[in-house]
């Protein structure tokens, strides 16, 4: 049986349930905080006496629960809130019921760190998904006191960092550009500030982040390795409120409140660094005139149009500016906007429509009459996505929809200043369009067995206008000139690809608190970065699939066991995975990519694979919370032309990886956090000798890539938070004191193999007379015992 037929068979099998009920059998409701009218996510909802068959509210506070014999009592429970019990009659099924939960008095005994149902990880169908709540995120010790979303995700199992001080994520053996980072559904193309030391997300503006490590629902796709789905916060609806923080290198301010009455709200959040303000204090005029800053600004307006319709508009803008003496500058900027419309057609039918636009641009400028230039580039993605959800039966939900994406990569344009004799250099722009149709069916077969089958079909076309070069032997190669070129007119299809992406998941409940899950997932990726350094640069070149660059295909199979114990206080999970990647690219030696129209001549492509096991023990309730994660994993690439065509490990292959995160609440005023990370050192190439050529001592490398290792990486961070326990006051302040790398471990950032003159590592031949010269190794390390202090406030 072919694979497609098997899928069809499975689909029919899943749908072939007893006849669909004609009458409305579902109770639908929305749950809000009685005080501030904010929707509550993850509230447990169940019929009295049927606690095991409950559900939980979704992101918008909605829940749908199959009706029982009515009248009956529905119970809503949520940590930190008083339980709500209401008698439901048959007529109540006709429309959405609203529930308002009252917050309990602050209780020391139960500190909530997760907005989710206690037994969710055992019961749901999700494998390889992690959710990080903002409470958890904000309690972690942070580099420079800057709470950082992407860096915090590195503490989760299966997520690797390439090295010290970078926010690039490498998920289950995938490269950093194989992660789809999206904000309210819109993609962010460069999620980093300061060359990746910080990520673009201002934590105050974020509601939550979900990380899908390859196993994503059919409604998402487009990247081979992971989805990092960031949801921006909505504003409070009752009154204007503010919060913010003053930190070591940046300050933040967030304002929120009702917009046009009680049915709409706004939230606006900003952050700016002030490293360059300190530069102004410098007595060195060269430093004084330099610029070095970044900012983030995000906003969201939400409107409840009526009982059925909700509209939200969100936007993020962030930029980095690095300037030298007002003459030389490098800047880059993301601008991402999204509109989301959610409609409740009936108690069992919902519709979501989303439109977005994401633009990334950079500029390098040198203001000089004779040697100056202005180099700009931008790329954008626009998309529209519609999805319908239908509860077919109490145990069966169908989701289907379509997602259209338009990529526009503008020409990279280097314009010399008027008297600069170099020629202007401009690459050709490229366009691509990707249409996706998806359908996903979730069905609970029995109380123990549930399954999800998803299909996503993508059809991609690279569009003109544009020129495609032809090469002798169809072999793009820098050593031969193109034999011909073909020009395509505007909107002509230059190359077409399509791919079916099946997503299958099953969960079997061995015991109420113990489940087994299995999943298979395929993804295609039509856009990637042509780079072979491990950390992203703002000027990295994104390339679209075309005649010579094929889309990346990833297949992942994963298996997991999930166990909760001690009344869901503890969660334990063990997941294993194997991932296969096809058509991953790397660069030839000395590749020149940035201003070339023949990128294909500089690329090599091949395959990759990764496997591993991830253990996670997590404590969610009590005075002490946190988790211990251990990952054993390997990542491989095999690309003809690299490492003598033999498999090699990418730099981020770090087999052993441990993260320990602990939070402890000592009293209403004092709390502390501690994180410890350990991982195998990065896979790198060290010289195996040296030689003299062209009067240069040159390190000699093996033909095999990354056969050496940095020393193991480990680090302990700690922070203490003091907040004024007087809850009645309007202005609430808290102080956070943190130390990054508490015991001062010198984790190497790089090893430079260079000649050491006069036994001084920073002595250069231009500094004066040379007495001695010998080969040496100079280690650079970044952060040792780095304290920080942040004042946070709310009003």
């Amino acid at each position, binding site marked *: 049986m072919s694979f497609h037929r098997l899928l069809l068979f499975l689909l029919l099998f899943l749908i072939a349930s007893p006849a669909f009920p004609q009458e409305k059998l579902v109770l639908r409701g929305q749950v809000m905080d009685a005080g501030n009218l904010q929707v509550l996510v993850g509230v447990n909802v169940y019929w009295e006496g049927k606690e095991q068959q409950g559900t939980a509210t979704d992101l918008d506070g909605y829940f749908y629960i199959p009706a029982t014999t009515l009248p009956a009592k529905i119970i809503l429970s949520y940590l930190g809130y008083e339980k709500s019990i209401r008698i439901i009659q048959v007529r109540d099924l006709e429309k959405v019921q609203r529930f308002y939960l009252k917050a309990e008095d602050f209780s020391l005994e139960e500190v909530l760190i997760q907005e989710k149902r206690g037994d969710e990880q055992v019961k749901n169908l999700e494998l390889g998904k992690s959710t990080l709540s903002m409470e958890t995120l904000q309690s972690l010790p942070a580099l420079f006191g800057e709470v950082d979303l992407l860096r915090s995700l590195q503490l989760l199992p299966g997520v690797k960092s390439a*090295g010290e001080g*970078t926010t690039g994520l490498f998920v289950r053996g995938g490269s950093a550009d194989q992660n789809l980072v999206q904000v309210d559904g819109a993609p962010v193309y460069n999620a980093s500030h300061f*060359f990746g030391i910080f990520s673009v997300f201002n934590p105050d503006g974020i509601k939550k982040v979900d990380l899908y490590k390859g196993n994503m629902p059919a409604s998402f796709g487009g990247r081979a390795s992971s989805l990092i789905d960031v949801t921006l916060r909505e504003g409070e609806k009752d009154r204007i409120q503010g919060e913010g923080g003053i930190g070591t*290198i940046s300050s933040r301010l967030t304002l929120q409140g009702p917009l046009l009455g009680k049915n709409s709200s706004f939230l606006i959040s900003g952050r700016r660094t002030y490293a360059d303000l300190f530069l102004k204090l410098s007595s060195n005029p060269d*430093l004084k005139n*330099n610029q070095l800053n970044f900012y983030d600004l995000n906003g969201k307006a939400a409107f409840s149009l009526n009982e059925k319709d909700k509209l939200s508009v969100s936007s993020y803008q962030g930029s980095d500016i690095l300037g030298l*003496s007002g003459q*030389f500058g*490098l800047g880059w900027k993301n601008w991402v906007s999204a509109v989301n419309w959610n409609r409740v057609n009936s108690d069992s039918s919902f519709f979501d429509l989303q439109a977005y636009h994401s633009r990334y641009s950079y500029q*390098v400028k040198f203001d000089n009459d*004779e*040697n100056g230039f202005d180099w700009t580039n931008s790329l954008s993605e626009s998309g529209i996505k519609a999805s319908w959800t239908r509860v077919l039966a109490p145990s069966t939900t169908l989701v289907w929809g379509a997602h259209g994406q338009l990529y526009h990569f503008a020409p990279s344009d*280097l314009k010399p200043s008027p008297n600069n*004799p*170099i*020629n202007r*250099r401009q690459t050709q722009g490229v366009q691509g369009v990707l249409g996706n149709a998806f359908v996903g069916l979730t069905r609970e077969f029995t109380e123990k067995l549930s399954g999800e089958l998803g299909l996503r079909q993508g059809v991609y076309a690279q569009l003109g206008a544009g020129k495609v070069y032809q090469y002798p032997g169809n072999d793009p190669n*820098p050593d031969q000139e193109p034999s011909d070129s073909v020009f395509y007119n505007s909107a002509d299809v230059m190359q077409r690809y399509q791919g079916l992406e099946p997503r299958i998941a099953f969960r079997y409940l061995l015991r109420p608190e113990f489940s087994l899950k299995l999943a298979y997932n395929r993804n295609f990726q039509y856009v990637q970065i042509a780079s*072979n*350094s491990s*950390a992203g*640069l703002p000027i990295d070149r994104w390339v679209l699939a075309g005649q010579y660059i094929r889309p990346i295909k990833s297949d992942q199979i994963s298996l997991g066991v999930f166990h909760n114990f001690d009344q869901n206080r503890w969660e334990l999970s063990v997941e294993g995975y194997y991932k296969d990647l096809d058509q991953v690219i790397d660069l030839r*030696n*000395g590749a020149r990519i940035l201003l070339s129209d023949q990128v294909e001549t500089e690329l090599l492509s091949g395959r990759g694979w990764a496997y591993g096991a991830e253990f996670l023990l997590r404590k969610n309730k009590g005075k002490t919370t946190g988790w211990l994660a251990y990952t054993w994993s390997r990542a491989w690439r095999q690309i003809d032309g690299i490492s003598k065509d033999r498999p090699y490990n990418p*730099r981020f292959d770090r087999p052993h990886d441990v993260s320990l995160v602990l939070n402890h609440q000592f009293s209403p005023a004092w709390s502390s956090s501690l994180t410890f990370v350990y991982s195998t050192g990065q896979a*790198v190439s*060290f010289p*195996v*000798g040296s*030689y003299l*050529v*062209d*009067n*240069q001592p*040159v*390190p*000699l*490398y093996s*033909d095999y*890539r*990354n*056969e050496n290792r940095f020393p193991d990486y480990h680090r302990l961070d700690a922070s203490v938070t003091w907040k004024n326990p007087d809850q009645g006051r309007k202005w609430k302040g808290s102080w956070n004191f943190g130390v990054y790398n508490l015991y001062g471990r*010198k984790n190497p*950032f*790089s*090893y*430079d193999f260079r000649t050491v003159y006069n036994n001084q*590592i920073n002595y*250069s*031949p231009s500094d004066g007379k040379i007495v001695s010269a*010998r*080969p040496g*190794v*100079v*280690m*650079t*390390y*970044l*952060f040792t015992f*780095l304290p920080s202090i942040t004042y946070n406030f709310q009003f």
Partner: protein
Amino acid sequence: MKKIWIFLLLSLLFSSCQEEVVLDLDQKDSRVPVIEAHWTDQSVYNEVKISLSKNYYDSLDQELIRDADVFIKEQSTGRKIAFRYLEATRSYRTNPTERARVGETYQLNVTWKGQVFQSEGLMLEPPIVDSVVWNYEEKRLFRDEGYFVKVYGKIPFTENNYYRIRVIENDTLYNQPEDYLLFDDTFGLQVFEKGLELGYAFQENDRIRLELYRINKDVFDYLSQLVNLLFNDGGLFSPPPQNPKSNIKVVKGNSQVLGFFVVSPVLSRTLVISSK
């Protein structure tokens, strides 16, 4: 350029620190021959240096190969130009009357211990250098104050436009990684007509020699990759380090070979900086 930024950023903002360490490095089972051959239209430059690679930490002088059989073959005539080892120059030299002729393809042949290495290069026509002038410039961004030299000339070629300039000041070759001046026609060659400025602030009475080479693409690629490697700091922003791709092939034997064979015309000028 990216390096400037990364280092600026790291040094300005963060407590980045450096120290010398000793790593336990792997060693090659056998030493690799390194061939560096220059074949030009000026006999002073014509030589073949052959040495062996060494372990990384060895600070001994390079080990020379003195017993190789070396010749360059003129492909159109099949004539062999023999080279022999001279201790005075620690390299293989030939008769000073032998020089590369424009339009001719030359094949380097090195035989050592049963191994045969070969490479080929085309002798290209040199560009035209009209004048070399210097001017005093005040301090600018990225440039100190001093006398800056500009080379004016003409490059009338539509292909094989790969050039290297070497600068020798008072008998010292500018030889740091940032001193490699390599250019091709990616950004056009008008810069040569309007005056190519060398990035050095010279002082009065400095004696400067400039050498302009028109090299083959494989040598240009080799030198570009060499510069990339010399700038590779082993950090996250650097690509994985790789040996530059040699244009010398092993035609017999199973050894590796390093180095390059350059066939090029050389235009040289010597000037003494004086205030005008």
